[in-house]
């Protein structure tokens, strides 16, 4: 084609090509399948062993927790919730980017999502698993946790559907199920690819079973695409609702600092913020190790950085609003709760939160920083830290000083709190590394779908 047409094409696609380098269908297939088919790089092995040992720590401390009782945590009378709940909300938040990227961006026809949606979804699922661990173990009597499910029983008792905790169970549970479906449905064609390329019998069998006998028939594609669209359509409101519902754990209570109507939107913004941060934290090393720079391009990182900038600022705005409303309400308890956050005994946590979530993202106003990989990497890690502290501040500082001063107390985490936090990362990364090893981390058929030659009319653009 001529330069002019080339320019036309540019303006038509309106963006830099989503896949760089001269890729065609088969190179894409080879590139991505090879990761699964060839032996893992040493980096992977080391990372896996490390995170697996962390996972063992988690298991150990959970065992001890169930044996000894909740007392091993730093909890006390006013502060009934500690790290466990903080971690829960943190992980649920992380779990947001995945489905958001695939579902929402899919509905908005954001083609660039294809490069990252697969492992963003994977990340979601593993994060939600980590999240689900904590409400499970934080209760005093784990062995009767089933009371929370509506199971017919000899007591004739049913759960209390007014309780935000129960909403959580349903919301997060559903979110997990739907994300899993969404992810799996997306995987089927690629699993078929792996099946067809598989050398060993075992692999062919396993991938064969998983791919459900997919034969890339177009009559299937038709249902498949619509179903996928439907799932995307369903997950979008779900994604937005889940963290809103999680936020009701706090918003519905009457504790000063928790009882806030701004929580739902601001939790969602925070969740997206931390979610993208985590995607960034994972994508950057992954693309380096597996040499996927051509598929997960700087362009992608740049776009994610922009989203982080936006959501980060939204969160910042929410922080400011909280203060304003607290002051404007004229409610002494309310205003004290927030002043206490900023200058009280937990001020240190508060200011870590502010600097990580509000100040650092402002770096992304600059194009050069947005496109510098190390900056992005470090910033994203800070964002994760900041978001963890946001939950810490909300949960602990509010609880430690509520209405009656006589019961005020200070909360200090015990060693077990910290071990479990670390351990949860072990759980997360173990899963994630296994995913990288055995499943295509990038949606091949979708990438193919956005290659220029995928468009039947791509040669006759004039």
């Amino acid at each position: 084609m001529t330069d002019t047409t080339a320019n036309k094409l540019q303006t038509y696609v309106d963006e830099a090509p989503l896949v760089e380098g001269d890729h065609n269908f088969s190179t894409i297939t080879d590139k991505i399948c090879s990761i699964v088919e060839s032996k893992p790089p040493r980096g992977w092995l080391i990372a896996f062993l490390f995170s697996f040992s962390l996972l063992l720590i988690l298991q150990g401390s959970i065992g001890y927790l169930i044996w000894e009782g909740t007392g091993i945590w730093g909890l006390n009378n006013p502060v009934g919730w500690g790290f466990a709940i903080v971690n829960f909300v943190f992980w649920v938040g992380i779990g947001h980017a995945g489905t958001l990227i695939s579902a929402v961006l899919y509905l908005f026809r954001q083609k660039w999502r294809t490069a990252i949606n697969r492992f963003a979804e994977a990340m979601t699922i593993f994060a939600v698993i980590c999240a689900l661990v904590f409400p499970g173990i934080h209760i005093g009597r784990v062995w009767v946790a089933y009371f929370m499910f509506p199971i017919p029983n000899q007591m004739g008792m049913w759960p209390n559907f007014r309780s935000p905790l129960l909403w959580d169970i349903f919301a997060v549970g559903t979110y997990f199920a739907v994300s899993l479906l969404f992810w799996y449905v997306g995987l089927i064609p690629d699993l078929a690819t792996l099946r067809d390329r598989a050398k060993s019998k075992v692999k062919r069998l396993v991938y064969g079973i998983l791919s459900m006998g997919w034969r890339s028939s177009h009559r299937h594609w038709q249902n498949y695409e619509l179903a996928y669209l439907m799932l995307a359509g369903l997950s979008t409101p779900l994604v937005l609702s889940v963290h809103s519902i999680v936020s009701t754990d706090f918003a519905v209570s009457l504790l000063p600092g928790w009882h806030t109507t701004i929580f739902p939107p601001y939790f969602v913004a925070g969740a997206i913020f931390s979610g993208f941060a985590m995607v960034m934290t994972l994508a950057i090393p992954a693309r380096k190790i597996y040499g996927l720079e051509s598929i997960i391009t700087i362009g992608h990182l740049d776009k994610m950085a922009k989203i982080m900038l936006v959501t980060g600022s939204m969160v910042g705005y929410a922080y400011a609003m909280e203060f304003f409303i607290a002051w404007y309400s004229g409610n002494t308890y309310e205003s004290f709760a927030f002043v206490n956050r900023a200058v009280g005994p937990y001020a240190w946590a508060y200011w870590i939160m502010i600097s990580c979530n509000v100040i650092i993202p402002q770096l992304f106003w600059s194009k050069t920083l947005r496109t510098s990989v190390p900056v992005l990497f470090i910033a994203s890690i800070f964002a994760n830290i900041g978001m963890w502290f946001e939950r810490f501040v909300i949960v602990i500082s509010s609880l430690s000083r509520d209405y009656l001063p006589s019961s005020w107390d200070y909360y200090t985490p015990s060693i077990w709190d910290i071990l479990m936090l670390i351990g949860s990362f072990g759980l997360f990364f173990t899963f994630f590394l296994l995913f990288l090893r055995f499943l295509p981390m990038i949606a091949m058929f979708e990438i193919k779908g956005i290659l220029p030659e995928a468009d039947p009319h791509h040669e006759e653009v004039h």
Partner: protein
Amino acid sequence: MTPKLIYGILAEFKDTKSILKAAESVKIEGYINFDCHTPFPVHGLDDAMGLKRSIIGYIVGFGCVMGASGGLLLQWWSSSIEFPIVISGKPFFSWQAYMIITFVLMILGGAFAALIGMFHLNRMPAYHHPLFNSKNFQKATDDAFFVSIEFKDPMFDLDDTKNFLVSIGGKNIEVIEE
């Protein structure tokens, strides 16, 4: 060994453009039981093959309704019929509080409907299919585009169909046995 039955004929095409044309002409020729196999959904192929819109949307809708109504019913029955308990002095059926779970279950119902519906319409899982006997067909999940015409098509004739496929530019024509 018993003589193998014929399933149909498989022809390979080089790119999206040609598969589109091929599908079109197969349709025009009057074949019904034919199919295209592409590594990714190729746009415009539905019309080319003359496929009707998928009904999966209705299935999902049904799933949503079931989920929502089931959820609300459960909450209403258990809290105001089965065992009414005074909680925070609120009415037994405090619907405001029950909306959330109702909504969530609606989504869940829909999602499962979508999955099951899709599998059902595609008759999946189907672990055994004649096409899998073709070595060449494995490319279908990589970078090759195929048209397959089934034996049970009224117009099917081994030689005519073969020639027809050649005429519309099909490569590596293959007869697939069951």
